[in-house]
């Protein structure tokens, strides 16, 4: 259907734009937040001068991200004498592309009814008919599985980069990245299983919709309140999966220079960094969808607010869609900010501690959480 094509092209454009903007802005947020956390001012020297004037736009250092990008583009693209040119060249892309793809299954808003949005243009509205589109690029039955499948691909990228660099530090970094990411991927999967048991689906759209209700009369029915332990474990495993401090053993500047991307420079190295920052946003989006009710505000349904006292505030369809998208972005931004807070607060693990933490501490906890959840769900349903 041509209508579907139009709508989904719009969705894809939106998703790519959101991710790229998040990736760029997060570099700035990371700098500034780290600075404010440690009583500093933060990067604020880069500016854009309006041509032919002396007006300098500094905007709190927002252009540092731009300057970084430009620097990455213009630097010499150093190539090590490696035996595997091909793997070396595609490794950054293998890391970068799956990260972008994961967003396809994440719902970033409620349901869109184009005919109702375009009521001012009767012909356009008639063209769309009574079609409805959930704000989600791919409504796959296998939603969460796709997330984990693509998440697993980034391991291959990191391993490829390390292997093909012909450098001992890269090699060590790749080995560390491999074992770490596989361990924590498992824990991520296990923690999410509890939610799947509760909601009975792996489709992220259904999971997000199921969280729009109210729990005990006042709590929003978010995954966080059903599965608090799982939320903590998921967040921890996700940060480890993204290889950021306190789990940045694969990079570990003080030990391995830059780990598996030691031999990369210019934009190839930039791709690794960019993938890391986009993955922060992806983790934020996943955590929001699974545990923070996705695009749902408390007491808000598709036709407006229903406050606990029975008070109803009706909203138009357009307003609801925009509010839901903004709510989703705001929640993602908050989770990203939390990850940056963690990154600038905690010291790095030792490598044996890292794996011990995964297998002897988080793994039993995740299993226990799953068992308790399963028993509780069984007790409630029978």
């Amino acid at each position, binding site marked *: 259907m041509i209508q579907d094509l139009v709508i989904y092209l719009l969705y894809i454009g939106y998703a790519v734009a959101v991710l790229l903007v998040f990736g760029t802005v997060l570099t700035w947020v990371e700098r500034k937040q780290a600075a404010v956390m440690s009583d500093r001012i933060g990067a604020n020297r880069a500016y854009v001068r309006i041509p032919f004037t002396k007006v300098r736009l500094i905007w709190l250092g927002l252009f540092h991200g731009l300057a970084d990008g430009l620097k990455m583009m213009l630097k010499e693209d150093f190539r090590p004498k490696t035996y595997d040119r091909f793997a070396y060249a595609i490794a950054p892309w293998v890391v970068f592309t799956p990260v972008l793809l994961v967003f396809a299954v994440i719902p970033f808003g409620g349901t869109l009814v184009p005919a109702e949005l375009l009521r001012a243009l009767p012909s356009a509205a008639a063209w769309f008919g009574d079609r409805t589109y959930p704000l989600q690029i791919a409504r796959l039955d296998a939603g969460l599985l796709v997330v984990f499948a693509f998440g697993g691909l980034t391991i291959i990228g990191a391993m490829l980069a390390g292997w093909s660099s012909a450098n001992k530090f890269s090699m060590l970094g790749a080995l560390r990245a491999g074992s770490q990411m596989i361990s924590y991927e498992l824990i991520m999967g296990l923690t999410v299983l509890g939610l799947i048991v509760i909601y009975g689906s792996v489709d992220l759209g259904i999971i997000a919709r199921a969280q729009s209700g109210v729990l005990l009369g006042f709590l929003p029915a978010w995954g966080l309140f059903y599965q608090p332990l799982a939320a*903590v474990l998921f967040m921890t495993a996700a940060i480890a999966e993204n290889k950021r401090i306190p789990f940045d053993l694969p990079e570990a500047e003080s030990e391995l220079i830059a780990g598996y991307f030691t031999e990369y420079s210019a934009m190839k190295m930039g791709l690794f960094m960019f993938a890391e920052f986009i993955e922060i946003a992806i983790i934020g989006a996943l955590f929001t969808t699974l545990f923070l009710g996705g695009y749902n505000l408390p007491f808000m349904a598709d036709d407006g607010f229903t406050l606990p006292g029975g008070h109803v505030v009706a909203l138009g369809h357009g307003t609801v869609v925009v509010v839901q998208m903004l709510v989703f972005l705001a929640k993602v931004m908050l989770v990203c900010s939390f990850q940056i807070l963690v990154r600038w607060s905690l010291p790095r693990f030792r490598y044996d501690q890292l794996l011990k933490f995964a297998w002897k*501490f988080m793994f039993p906890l995740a299993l226990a959480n799953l068992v308790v959840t399963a028993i509780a769900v069984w007790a409630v349903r029978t």
Partner: protein
Amino acid sequence: MTWWERAYLFEILRGLGITGGVFVRNMWRWMTLRKGALTTYYPEETRSDYALRNRGKHVLTQRPDGRPQCIACNLCATICPAKVIEIEAAFDPEDAAHPKYPARFEIDYSRCIFCGLCVEACPEDAIRMVKEVPNLPTHDRSGLWLSLDELLTWNPQSDVAKPYPPGPERKPAQRAS
């Protein structure tokens, strides 16, 4: 370690609370238009807490008529361990009391070590150091040479050491502040 500490999560949350608290406090200061940082935005801002005796920047004292008090004796240039002071003396037959004066007095701040020996060597109290640091960031080495004009541009009115012409009643010099 107690079980509380070994459970890891609680202590981590406490740590995150501390750093997050600092973040919120500083953000609140920025949002209420105060400064939320301990660092100084150099060179736009100057620190207000330089010590009184900080040897920051050289100044040349002046006589009431605005001419430098320096008699171009070259003692400061001689004692200077970094050899940064360059003086070119000139002769002024009009001024009977101080016929010798500096036509050129330059300090190369790219090499100055701020030891203050020039101040101690000066017999005429013509060179002093104030606590503020010179505003020197520049793209060019030549910008680090401060000449007579720049060394004289300070506020000498309250700090003239000697009356001119020199009389018997000499007041002790006030420190430039």
